[in-house]
């Protein structure tokens, strides 16, 4: 039983962390908080991939000339790319938040919805006139 838990411990905790991030993204109305949640989600996915590449007793995949066991370098390459793409999307998301704040003077989802529906009713009233 303990062996089973240890064999999957990394994956399970990482999945719990992913779900914590997903919950922040879905349930919180504040746009900056959503992006923080997205970052937590993303970092946890990185950990999941790197955990899969770990080999017991292995070492970092750098050739030293000696005979060594290396952990799988392919997830490392994938995740290096993913980190950089992640920061690009974070920057874009934060820029959108700044723009939304300028247009609606709020970064709360429900207040933006309210402002939108007010706009729509105002438009309708104008068209009727």
């Amino acid at each position, binding site marked *: 039983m303990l062996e089973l838990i240890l064999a999957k411990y990394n994956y399970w905790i990482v999945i*719990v962390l992913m779900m914590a991030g997903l919950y*922040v993204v*879905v349930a919180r109305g504040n746009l900056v908080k959503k992006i923080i*949640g997205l970052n937590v989600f993303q970092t946890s996915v990185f950990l999941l991939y*790197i955990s899969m590449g770990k080999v017991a007793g*292995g070492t970092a995949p750098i050739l030293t000339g000696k005979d060594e066991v290396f952990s799988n370098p*392919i997830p490392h390459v994938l995740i290096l790319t993913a980190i950089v793409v992640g920061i690009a999307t974070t920057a874009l998301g934060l820029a959108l*938040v700044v723009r939304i704040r300028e247009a609606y003077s709020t970064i709360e989802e429900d207040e933006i919805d309210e402002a939108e529906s007010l706009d729509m009713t105002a438009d309708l009233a104008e068209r009727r006139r």
Partner: protein
Amino acid sequence: MELLIDIVLLAILGIIAVAILWTRHLFVATMLSGAYSLTSAALLVALDAVDVAFTEAAVGAGISTVLMLGTLTLTRRREKATNRRVSIGPLLLVIVTGALLIYGTVDMPAFGDPNAPALLHVVPEYLAGTRDDIQIPNIVTAILASYRGFDTLGETAVIFTAGVGVLLLLGRRREEDEEAGTRRPEREA
């Protein structure tokens, strides 16, 4: 010993994630997300991914924290104080998704398994190729820049697109402001 470090660092990550869920102060949440990235960088070292670890420490804990602090100065520091009740819909979604993912791990090879299928196909070729053909010590660099060079080119295209997007979103505003002579909305306390 390695396993112990792994378990402790994952537990710390769990605590930080709960704190991020709990706090209403966006500045605190930003700092916690920086701490989250830094702790995961430490964990990545324990998992033998040294290249990933320093990228995560520099980009995740450094640049993204700076970007978020910049956003906070342009927007506001606190989340709206709503009631702290747990919303059922998102909670259900998260539990179902998590359960499905955990179900998926049942068939996965055990953590640290040296006979995992992912290790048996191209990895030995990359190891031998890096030693004989590329002749640089770092296998990750060899794969990133040589074997998977086009992936890295695509990544550069993504960053370029995002950079152009940010410039279009934030650069246009300044011109409009100057033309109209208006000021940005005043900062909320």
